[in-house]
């Protein structure tokens, strides 16, 4: 089998061979084969039959010609003999022996010469007067044939013709007769008998029967002896009597039917001859009419030849169709295999397509993943040549991918200040010692800016497990680095601030220190309660004693604070009030306000104000009040929505005022008086010492610290300090 030709695969659904359709195909094929066999048989039969018919027709014509020739060959002989004077003399003088002898001799000579069987002369009574066989034992002389039709026909002045069995000889023959006319009167009859054996004997050599029937359908000549003188059609009774009378077919003849029937057929003109009895043979029969003689010649051919031809054709056609069916089945099988191959190819193509699609999807997915990465990716081969960079990496250093790929160290983004370090790192990695924890690197962006990065490098393994290079992920930590730096700066500043805010710090330390004895107090009290309930007086006493000790310790701490505040060495000096406020803002307040998103407004007095004060302590008080104000506003949403920390300075009656105004919740009634008491606090985590200390500080400077509610919501804390004489003079006229 040759290779399947590579055709373009048809689109659409591939052809299949359903079982039903395959069955139908085979059934159709078998029907066609049967039709072919039948048709071939029919055709062969028809063809053979036509050939047989042609043969029969030719045979019939030939035989008819021969028959007619024999039957008419001696037509002239009786007529000619009748003209002979010797015959006339004989008839005129039948008694004369000499004439008889002469006539006998004449007839004998003529008969012998012509080759006919008998030649004889009868008087009008039918009595034979002379005959060619006068000297044979079967001599016709003196025989009377007056009852024979040929005699009567001749007597009537016509030529008689008659086939019959000889009365004298018992042998069949054709009798032809002619009248002897003398002076318009029939005076006798001359007849000749012709034997038909010369024509019928060769028929015996023929394979199939040949026979001749007379006008009444009686077989009188033929190749089958058994059929002779038998009737092929029913005879009416008068005719039978007549035949018995004239003894045409011998003495004692009775009608017997032939052992066959002849059925005429229209197309082609002919007949079928079928022997009687089951399984009888059948013949094709051709009838040639001889109307001048009143005879019918029938030639036959065995129809078995036709049947045989049909059977042969059947056999051949069956063989042919068998081959055809096999061929068709093979073709179908091959088609099916081709279809399956095609189907398999289409499936393969579909799979390839799906696979390709999946790969494209994966590729697209990978691409968008790489593009969306903020982490830079860089792959290098074993020599350090860059083989891949992603978009994030390019963004990070400001070079395009095509500018980086193929580069060997030193790379363009290496920071010029750290080349040694870069070389060192690169050599370390390429030698196989990647930094597992990552490596911080400062890079130089194309635009000249510094980029801080973290490199994480791992081995690059290809699909077959081969180590082919190094893959680095690069994280940009510049922002983080900056934030750290800023944080550091902020912390430094904060430390400076915290050093300054000793009041706040002190309060916190105080809280911690004071909390210890307070906690112990609470615990001992609880323990004492439990022990009292258990009735254990010994431990109870111990607990109560310890409780007293802790209470005294707490009181001691408070006393220490007060002493610290009082004993603080005074360093009073003339200073500018607005400078102090400004310094407070710079130290902490402005930053804190910005953190909370609250604007700060400073209102200067009309003229510079000078006070005699400890600059650092005064700053701390302002900061403390400012922080309080910010905290108040942080927890409170003002109705106007306008948060603002306001620091106002003013001169009033020889005093300088610093007011800290907020829009917080204000001071509830009954709170304002207690605000500056030690350990009074409105906050859950407050200790209640800040304002108390603040007031102590201000009072130590000869001033006052007061608080009141502000018009329109919020609180006002006011520091009132006496002005130094210089400003007092200026402001107070």
């Amino acid at each position, binding site marked *: 089998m040759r290779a399947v030709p590579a055709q373009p695969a048809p689109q659409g659904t591939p052809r299949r061979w359903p079982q039903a359709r395959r069955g139908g195909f085979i059934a159709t094929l078998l029907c066609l084969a049967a039709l072919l066999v039948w048709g071939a048989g029919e055709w062969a039969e028809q063809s053979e039959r036509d050939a047989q018919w042609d043969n029969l027709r030719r045979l019939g014509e030939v035989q008819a010609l021969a028959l007619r020739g024999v039957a008419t060959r001696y037509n002239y002989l009786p007529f000619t003999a009748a003209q002979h004077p010797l015959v006339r003399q004989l008839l005129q003088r039948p008694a004369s022996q000499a004439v008889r002898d002469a006539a006998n001799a004449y007839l004998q000579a003529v008969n012998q010469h012509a080759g006919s069987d008998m030649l004889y002369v009868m008087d009008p009574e039918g009595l034979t007067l002379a005959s060619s066989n006068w000297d044979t034992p079967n001599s016709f002389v003196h025989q009377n044939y007056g009852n024979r039709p040929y005699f009567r026909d001749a007597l009537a002045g016509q030529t008689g013709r008659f086939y019959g069995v000889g009365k004298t000889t018992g042998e069949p023959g054709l009798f032809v007769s002619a009248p002897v006319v003398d002076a318009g009167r029939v005076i006798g009859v001359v007849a000749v008998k012709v034997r038909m054996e010369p024509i019928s004997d060769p028929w015996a050599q023929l394979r199939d029967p040949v026979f001749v029937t007379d006008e009444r359908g009686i077989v009188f000549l033929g190749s089958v002896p058994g059929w002779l003188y038998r009737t092929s059609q029913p005879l009416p009774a008068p005719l039978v009597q007549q035949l018995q009378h004239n003894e045409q077919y011998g003495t004692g003849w009775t009608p017997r039917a032939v052992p066959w029937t002849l059925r005429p057929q229209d197309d082609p003109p002919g007949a079928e001859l079928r022997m009687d009895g089951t399984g009888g043979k059948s013949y094709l029969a051709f009838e040639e009419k001889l109307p001048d003689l009143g005879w019918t010649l029938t030639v036959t051919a065995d129809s078995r030849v036709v049947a045989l031809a049909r059977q042969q054709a059947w056999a051949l056609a069956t063989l042919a169709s068998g081959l055809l069916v096999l061929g068709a089945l093979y073709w179908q099988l091959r088609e099916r295999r081709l279809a399956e191959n095609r189907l398999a190819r289409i499936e393969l193509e579909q799979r390839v397509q799906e696979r390709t699609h999946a790969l494209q999807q994966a590729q697209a997915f990978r691409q968008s993943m790489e593009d969306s990465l903020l982490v830079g990716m860089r792959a290098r081969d074993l020599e350090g040549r860059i083989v891949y960079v992603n978009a994030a990496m390019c963004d990070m250093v400001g070079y395009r991918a095509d500018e980086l790929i193929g580069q060997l160290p030193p790379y363009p983004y290496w920071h010029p200040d750290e080349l040694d370090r870069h070389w060192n790192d690169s050599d370390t990695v390429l030698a196989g010692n990647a930094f597992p924890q990552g490596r911080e690197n400062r890079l130089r962006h194309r635009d000249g800016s510094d980029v801080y990065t973290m490199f994480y490098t*791992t081995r690059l393994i290809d699909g077959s497990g081969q180590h082919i290079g190094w893959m680095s992920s690069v994280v940009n930590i510049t922002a983080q680095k900056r934030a750290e730096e800023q944080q550091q700066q902020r912390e430094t500043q904060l430390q400076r601030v915290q050093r300054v805010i000793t009041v706040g710090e002190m309060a916190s330390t105080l809280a*911690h220190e004071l909390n*210890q004895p307070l*906690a112990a107090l609470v615990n001992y009290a*609880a323990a004492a309660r439990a022990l009292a309930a258990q009735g254990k007086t010994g431990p109870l006493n111990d*607990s109560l004693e*310890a409780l007293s000790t802790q209470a005294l310790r707490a009181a001691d701490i408070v006393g220490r604070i007060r002493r610290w505040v009082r004993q603080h060495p005074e360093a009073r000096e003339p200073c500018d009030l607005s400078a102090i406020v400004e310094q407070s803002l710079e130290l902490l307040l402005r930053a804190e306000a910005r953190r909370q998103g609250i604007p700060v407004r400073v209102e200067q007095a009309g003229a510079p104000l000078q006070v005699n004060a400890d600059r650092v302590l005064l700053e701390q008080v302002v900061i403390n009040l400012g922080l309080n104000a910010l905290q108040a506003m942080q927890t409170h949403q003002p109705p106007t929505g306008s948060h603002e920390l306001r620091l106002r300075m003013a001169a009033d009656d020889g005093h300088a005022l610093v007011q800290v105004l907020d829009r917080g919740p204000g001071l509830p009634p009954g709170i304002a008086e207690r605000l500056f008491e030690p350990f009074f606090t409105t906050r859950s985590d407050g200790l209640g010492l800040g304002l108390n200390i603040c007031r102590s500080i201000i009072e130590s400077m000869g001033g006052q610290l007061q608080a009141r509610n502000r018009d329109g919501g919020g609180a006002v804390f006011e520091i009132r300090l006496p002005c130094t004489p210089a400003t007092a003079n200026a402001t107070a006229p």
Partner: protein
Amino acid sequence: MTYDTAPIAADSPDPTVVYIVDDDEGVRQSLAALLIARGHQVHTFAGGEAFLAEATLDQPGCVLLDLRMEGLSGLQVFHELGQRHSVLKTVFLSAHGELSSAVAAVKQGAVDWLEKPCSESTLLAAVEKASTLSQAQARQVQRQQQQRDRWNALSPRQQEVAQLLATGISSKEAARALAQRDPERPIDPRTVDTHRSAIFLKLDIRSSHELGMLVEGLGVALNTPRTA
């Protein structure tokens, strides 16, 4: 005066040890007095170093730990406990202004924090909670140790098979994997089945799922090989 003694009264049916670590003697002794009165067994320490050196770290118990101390800070002591896989549970004691540190400590696994001074009920509740958790963890550790002992009782081949089966694959697949790993020692799936029965019996488990949890818990689960 010291209260570092056995409990005065055994009110609590299951007294748990309470370690008090605070550099302030007043606080330390007062807490001891209260807890002893409430039936706890108490040990007091003035500093983290002494506590770490003397305390029984693998028995359940509660630690009341002051945040701000001389020497090791409370957070350092707490981290050290974690490093040593102690089952002790910590409640921090903080003074004013140490809120953020205390919150951070709780986020790192401390049971609670108490701001000094605190009420008795708050203190006792925190101690109770820490003790319960510590006992639970001690049981957990014990159970894990038991599982580890059982695991170590397996033969090396059984451990190999168990690790494979723990990933949830069938005996046939396990046999194939083993044959792939070591082609010179092919193994029949029925042999794997036999191993499986022995493994289940020795580890006292009933399903591959339990096996997976156990292997995971012991930290011997197979990692899918990864190229980094």
